[in-house]
């Protein structure tokens, strides 16, 4: 087959589109729930067979068409159709339970698990595979090495993240203080037994200081824009219209007793501030507070229109102190788990996901993640990082 300039590009789109249509047909006659790839060890077998298939095809197939398949022309068509599918994913809400039947039947509500996405991805990986094998001969040239890192890196990421997704476990574990738990829910339904138990020793939340709010006490309209200037920090002072406010004292965890605020160790507290409010004629010291789910905020009325109060504080950090007991009896005591600061144990990552409050009792919500394919995916990601760095250095070949 002669693959000249004229037919090269159209053919590339024709093949990718044909694959898409085949995928769409299968999708139409499938369950409309999307593909769930098989778990370990079937997925590793599929991956190995796929790799062997690409290498064998590359080795035994010698025609102009094969050459075309490892060329830039076939690549452009494949990436474009793949990109358009991702683009549709960007416009249509994914995994939407309210999606219309048409959207659902076409697989548009779960594109990354649709048959056509699978086929196009596999096609892209085959072309990528050919390209990598073509260039691998001169891998020790600097430019070819950068090429290899980028192309094999992305191959590894797409291939292993896809087949590995079947083995990904994300488990939610809500836990009360001083409670010990060994079981948790996956996808809110399946109960999973962990190879260790977790005891929550302590859970606490630190907040940012709230802002002082000036508002009209008839219309409830907020008058000042909440900003760093009005932060309820000790000794901070600011003014609104003719009123000056000075923060004399703050109590982040306060309870009210007889119209005054005191520091408290209970979990139902609010942020309170003792402030001096003054204008040209008068000066008063008053309490204001942010309120909480069981108590309203404390307001100080300044004049006929203006009153002040505190906004609800925003969370700065929430921390779980846990003790892990592995099944073999080993104990890891008083670990700190925070957002952005997970703990790794027996191949599981333990995350601080969030918290909840039921009848005044705080619940720490932990997430436990197991992703056995993570190291391989990370090899790909790191190859891409280094490859991009080299590409940045090299620029385009002239």
């Amino acid at each position: 087959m002669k693959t000249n300039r004229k037919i090269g590009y159209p053919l590339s789109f024709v093949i990718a589109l044909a694959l898409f249509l085949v995928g769409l047909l299968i999708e139409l006659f499938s369950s409309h729930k999307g593909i769930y790839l098989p778990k370990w060890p079937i997925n590793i077998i599929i991956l190995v067979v796929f790799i062997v298939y690409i290498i064998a095809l590359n080795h035994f197939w010698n025609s102009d068409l094969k050459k075309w398949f490892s060329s830039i022309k076939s690549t452009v068509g494949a990436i474009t159709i793949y990109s358009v599918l991702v683009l549709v994913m960007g416009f249509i809400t994914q995994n939407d339970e309210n999606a219309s039947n048409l959207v659902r039947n076409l697989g548009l509500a779960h594109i990354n698990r649709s048959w056509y996405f699978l086929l196009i991805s596999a096609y892209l990986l085959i072309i990528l595979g050919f390209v990598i094998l073509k260039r691998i001969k001169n891998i020790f040239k600097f430019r070819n090495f950068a090429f290899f890192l980028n192309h094999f890196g992305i191959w590894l990421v797409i291939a292993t993240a896809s087949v590995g997704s079947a083995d990904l476990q994300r488990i939610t574990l809500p836990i009360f203080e001083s409670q010990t738990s060994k079981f948790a829910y996956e996808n809110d339904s399946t109960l999973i037994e962990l190879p260790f138990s977790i005891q929550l020793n302590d859970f606490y939340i630190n907040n940012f200081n709230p802002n002082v709010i000036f508002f009209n006490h008839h219309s409830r309209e907020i008058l000042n824009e909440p900003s760093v200037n009005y932060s309820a920090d000790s000794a901070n002072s600011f003014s609104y219209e003719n009123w000056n406010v000075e923060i004399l004292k703050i109590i982040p965890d306060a309870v009210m007793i007889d119209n005054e605020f005191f520091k408290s160790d209970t979990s139902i507290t609010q942020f309170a501030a003792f402030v001096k409010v003054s204008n040209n004629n008068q000066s008063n010291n008053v309490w204001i507070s942010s309120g909480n789910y069981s108590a309203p905020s404390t307001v100080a009325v300044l004049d006929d229109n203006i009153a002040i109060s505190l906004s609800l504080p925003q969370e700065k950090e929430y921390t779980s102190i846990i003790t892990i007991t592995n099944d073999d009896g080993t104990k890891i005591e008083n670990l700190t788990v925070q957002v952005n600061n997970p703990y790794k144990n027996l191949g599981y990552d333990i995350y601080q996901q969030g918290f909840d409050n039921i009848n005044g009792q705080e619940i720490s919500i932990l997430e436990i993640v197991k992703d056995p394919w993570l190291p391989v995916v990370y090899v790909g990601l790191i190859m891409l990082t280094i490859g991009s760095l080299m590409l940045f250095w090299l620029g385009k070949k002239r």
Partner: protein
Amino acid sequence: MMLFDFKILFPAVLLLWIIGALIFYIFKNKKIKNIGLVIISAGILYIFSLIVYMWVNLERPPLRTLGETRLWYALLVPIVGMVLYFRWKMKWIISYSVFLASVFVLISYSSPENFDKALMPALQSIWFVPHVIVYMFAYSILSVTMLIALKGLLMLAKNKFDENLMITADNIVYVGFAFLTFGLLFGAFWAKEAWGHYWTWDPKETWAFITWLFYLIYIHLRYNHKENVKPALWVLALAFIFLLVCWFGVNYLPSTQTSVHTYSS
């Protein structure tokens, strides 16, 4: 501090940039041109000092809200413009980049944001600053390719196309794409630390991936095939539109209301 009041700062920066760009544009003498550049630099320095002031005052990196990222953009775009001018002697890039940055300063001026200290726990990470700055840098660089794409399409329409324009575009795209890749990868590493998984097809992630893919298409269209000028220019323009959707648009698209990447209310 008065010096950092937006009502004073933004008009001052705009004035510096307009005067600087005019001097640079009107005069032929290189020394006088350089005075124009110095005046533009003064505006850049002013924005820079504002960012430092905010960083100190807010006790957190000012990279959380769209308004804050706009300031970084207004800082980086003219810097990228200057670098490109000195590297490839592209005179037109100065006025274009200053114009682009001015638009962002004007947006910030007309819709001022409130800056508060709160930084949600998910953002408190060593990845926060590199992830966002790398992206802002990539966006600044790639905005130049948008201008090139428009210029190129205009030249094609007039049948006066200059191949050198594509060489410049290719060079800039390679640099911008490298940064885009870093942004995506840093984001993935960070997501694993903060949210438990490196990729969840969150709308912001999907749009960042779309942007990355379309620049990837451009690179492949241009690779060893100089004849693909017209489709390449269109892809370049389109890619930047997707970049803008990723940056701003995801806050408005109905398909993205469930995004975990929401930090400004």
